[in-house]
Structures are given as C-alpha cells and as structure tokens.
C-alpha cells in the first residue's frame, strides 16, 4: 500500500457508493420535485412536505409506529438484558446450550415465519389483532438482538467489580443497580436503539400481527406504493432517512469524542505517572 489513489481504487469506491446510495439520493431528490409524476423533474418544491402534513392517514401511522417502537424497544431491552445476564452468569445450568440457541434463533428465522407463528398464536389465544399484538410481536423478535448486544458486553465485564461491591457491603441487588448496570449501560442503550430501529422499519411481522387501527408507517407506505408511488411517499421516506442519519451521525460523533477524550486522559495519567 502506497497510500496513493490508484484508478482502480477510485472506480471501486465510486461504484460501491453509487450502488449503495444512488437509489436513496434519487428518492431524496424526487421528494423535492414539483411535479405530481414521480419520474419527471419539474423544478424544486417543498410542496409534498406540506401535503404530507395534511395527510391524516400517514400522520396516524407515524404516531402508531413511534409508540410501538418506543414501547417494544423498552420492554425488549429489559427482557433481553435479563436473558443476557442469565446466559453469561449461570454458565452451568442444565439446558444452557438449548436456551442460548433458542434466544438467538429468531435472529436467523425468516420474518415470514416469525410473523405467521405469532399470528397463529394470537388467533389461538383469542387476542384481537391491533396495537397490543404488533407491540408484543416486536418485543419478541427485537429482544434477542438486545440479548446479543448486551451479552457481548457482559463477556468482557470484569466480575471482580461486582465482588468488590459486595465485599464493600453492597447486597446483590444494590451491586446490580450501583455497579453492574451503570457499567453496561452503554451496551443497553445501543441495544435499545437497535430494537427501536428494527421495530421502526419492520413491515413483514407487522403485516401479520397488526389489525385495524394499528397500521404502522412501513405498512402504510407499502399499501400506498401499491397504488402507485407518489411524491408524498418520497417525502415521508426522506424524513425517515433524515431522522436515522442524524441519529447515527450523532451517536458516532459522541462515541468518537469520548474515545479521544479517554485516550487523552490515559496519556496524561501515564505522563504524570
């Protein structure tokens, strides 16, 4: 590696990024299109964003999605964290391998199957499909993602921290809330964010488990697109992309800053040594 940009490198990068982002760029560009026809450019306009604000159907769906995502992410985070704790702490219980497998299986399970099986369950127990069922379904499948994220943090967690806390007089419960939880909190937060995003863009499971009055945004978009892509849909999607992009960029900047600060502190401490 000489560090210079060979022609081959440049071409690869351009092609790669084009492949990834060209569709999204097109979508964003056309959301600002004046024309009603999606594929014909007729000048810049924010008209469709205005239209969007008056479209009660989409606004309702967005509100449902936000609530489902928030509630399901929060519950999934609690359950996933507990599962991760159980899996890393009690390494000797019977059936641990089976349990681990069962926690992680939904990660690779086709969504159609997850959705269908949940639907069958809800029908069997006589639960009316709606807000509750879609939330439960989202909890079910995002829980295992949280468990994976938290478990990987717990594997590198220094157990002597907990022993030290107990040694200093903290009961196991106090130890958990005063030492374990604060230390693994970043992982729990990223688990929550992952669960939130998964719920936000889930279409398949939601379609199976949702009912009247609980249409989520992806479902709404999908059903509208079937009637033809409107610039309004482009606008919704652009807003979604904006929210996600801001979230991701903010998170990585905060992380980066913290890391730099940490490195600087450590070097300072070393020099004082």
């Amino acid at each position, binding site marked *: 590696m000489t560090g210079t940009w060979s022609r081959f490198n440049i071409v690869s990068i351009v092609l790669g990024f084009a492949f990834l982002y060209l569709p999204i760029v097109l979508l964003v560009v056309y959301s600002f299109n004046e024309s009603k026809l999606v594929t014909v450019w007729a000048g810049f306009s924010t008209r469709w964003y205005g239209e969007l604000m008056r479209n009660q159907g989409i606004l309702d769906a967005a509100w449902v999605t936000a609530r489902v995502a928030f509630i399901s992410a929060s519950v999934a985070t609690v359950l996933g964290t507990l599962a991760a704790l159980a899996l890393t702490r009690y390494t000797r219980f019977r059936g641990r391998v089976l349990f681990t497998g069962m926690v992680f299986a939904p990660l690779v399970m086709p969504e159609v199957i997850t959705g269908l099986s949940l639907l069958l369950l809800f029908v069997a127990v006589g639960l009316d499909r709606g807000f509750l069922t879609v939330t439960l379904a989202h909890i079910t499948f995002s829980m295992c993602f949280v468990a994976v994220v938290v478990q990987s943090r717990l594997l590198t967690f*220094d157990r*002597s*921290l907990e*022993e*030290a*806390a*107990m*040694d*200093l*007089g*903290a*009961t196991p419960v*106090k130890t958990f809330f*005063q*030492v374990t939880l*604060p*230390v693994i909190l970043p992982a729990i937060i990223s688990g929550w964010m992952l669960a939130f995003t998964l719920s936000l863009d889930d279409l398949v499971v939601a379609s199976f488990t949702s009912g009247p009055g609980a249409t989520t945004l992806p479902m709404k978009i999908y059903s509208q697109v079937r009637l033809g892509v409107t610039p309004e849909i482009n606008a919704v999607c652009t807003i979604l992309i904006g929210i996600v992009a801001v979230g991701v960029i903010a998170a990585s900047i905060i992380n980066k800053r913290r890391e730099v600060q*940490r490195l600087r*502190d*450590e070097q*300072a*401490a*070393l020099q*004082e*040594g």
Partner: protein
Amino acid sequence: MKSLGSIRRSFAPWADPAAKPYILFENVTKKFGDFVAVDDLSLSLFEREFFALLGASGCGKSTLLRMLAGFEEPTSGRILLDGQDLRGIPPYRRPVNMMFQSYALFPHMTVEQNIAFGLKQDGMPKPEIAERVGAMLKLVKLEPFAKRKPHQLSGGQRQRVALARSLAKRPKVLLLDEPLGALDKKLREETQFELMDLQQELGLTFVVVTHDQEEAMTMADRIAIMDKGKVKQVATPAEIYEAPNSRFVADFVGSVNLFEGQVSKASNGAMQIASGDLVLKARNGADADTGNTVWFAIRPEKIRVTPQKPEGGDANAMEGEIYDIAYLGDMTIYNVRLDDGRIIKASTMNSARVNENILSWHDRAWISFNSDAGVVLTA
C-alpha cells in the same frame, strides 16, 4: 539451633501457646468439580499479623483468600474469624475487605466516590463519609486526584485508590490479592515498605496472596508456602529461608544446592552424609538414622569459592572447575563443576571494588562451607 526470630522482635504470638488465633482454618477443603483447590488445610493467623500466602499459580492460595472474603464456601471444614464461624455469611456482611489484583475500581465513579462506596452501603452520615474519605485520600497521598475517574490515573495511583477503598471501612482484616503484581519493579519496592508501614500504623491484620517470594519475604511476619492445595511450611521469612522443612520449600524460596546422600554417621546432632564420592559434614536440620537417604541443602551465598584449598577443620571443601560466571554488580555468581560432574552454585558479595584473586572460566577452584551452613532435609 539458634532461634531465627521475626524481624519485629517483640511480635511473635504464634510462639505463645496462650495466644488465641484470630483467623482459624480448620480442615478446610475446597473442590471445584473433581479439582481439589484446597486440601484439608488447617492454619492459624493472629491479630495484627502480616501474613503471606506464597505459592505458584494454581496452588490454592487465592481460593483460600476468596473463602475468607466469602466469595467461595468451603466444601468441608470451618473458617473462624475472631471465634465466629463464617459459614453462610455472605461477603457483604463479613468484617473483612479485599484489595483485588485487578483493583476492580468502579470505572463510572470518581476516586472519592470509589472510596466512599463502602461507607455509603453502611448508611454512614454524609459529613462523616466526607471526613473519612478525606482521611483516606491523605493516607494514600491522593488528595489532588479526588475528582478523577480511574482511567485518568496511572497504575500506581489506581493501586492506592484500591488500597484506600478497601481500608475505608476499617475492616478487622484486610485481604490483598497480589497487591503489587501490576506495578513495575521500582514502584513495587517502594510500595512494599508503604504497605508495611500502613499495617503497623493501623494495627490491622493483613493477609496477602502473592507468587513473588521477595514480596512475601519483605513484608510478611510469617509466610505459608502452599503447593497443590496444601500448606508445606508456615514460618517466619528467616526460618523459611534458613530452615526449610522440605526440598520443595528450600527450592521454592531462593536458590539452593541439594546434595543427595546416605547418612553414614550420626551422633550428637552432627551427621556425616555420603554423597557420591564426597562425605559431607552437617549439623543442622532434620534427624535421620544411619543408612537413611537425606538431602543436604545449602544456599549459594553460604559457599565460599577460593583458588586454593581453604584452611580449617570444620569446613566441607571440594575441588572443581569454574563453569560459568555471572557478574551482577553487587554480587557474582559462580557455577562450579565438581570433578564428579555435579554443578554447584555459589555467590559472592562484591564488597570490594577491586578483587585481588580473580577467578575466571575453566580455572580450578575450591568450594567450601561450614557444617552448620546448610540444613539436612528428609522430605
């Protein structure tokens, strides 16, 4: 044998039959599955004692400490602290505190908060906590660092925070798990003395686990040498070094030359040992009857190396050739190959800057030592 006392001359409760042990291990066994970590071990520790558990990794010393702290329960046997059976008492109710090898500082808390943690758990009023934390910071000379987080501290500073935190609750016993293991050599030496001073000043009982014999020798009143879950010998550092009770202990602490042989004559505490072609005169150590196999153990610094055969009646003397020389500055180590092929290690302090009769590689030389310079071992 002349007594090999402790360095703190007046402090020797273990020698006093009336003294009551403060910590008592009674036939303690700890098994992890099939692995026996601690094997039917009994041990008495006394109040205000600085006690070291010394052994290679996996010898059970850390398990012993963890049982005292309450992180492990003995499979069988009892542990008594000040007369109280510790069985079933969880770590957070035991009057002992531990300093962890990794320090286990809480990364999300400042130095101050780390030290205050234990006091808060006890529900101590805030002004008292502040006062105690201030005193601890002063004790370990960390006052300017009170508001820092652990990752903003150097290794030595972290070690002091861990120490302050474990001392803050004024435990009856402080357990130290490899307390100096993570420090570099120079800092380690300084800190050893600081720990000793602190222990004296506070009048606490310290139990330290270490694999570093120098550390144990420097700091401890008594040392227990452990191997495979058993205690091999419990004695003062001087006794451990000068009067080991077995080849294992002799070899584990410091370096030693061992002559295997049969007792050819034994009378009045004096002994003659036939070892190969040599006949060694010995006066210290275990008793053995004529014909028994024994080992004569002698430390390198007790052996003289001279170009000519030394004068004198009592001394053992044997001839050989200089095989290797290691010049260390303060001392020189000679490996001398005896004429029967055995290699004997001898060391000489370089007390003069210039040595008159310099020995060099392949020179003929005599090694000699008095009959009371080594010990006879039967195990």
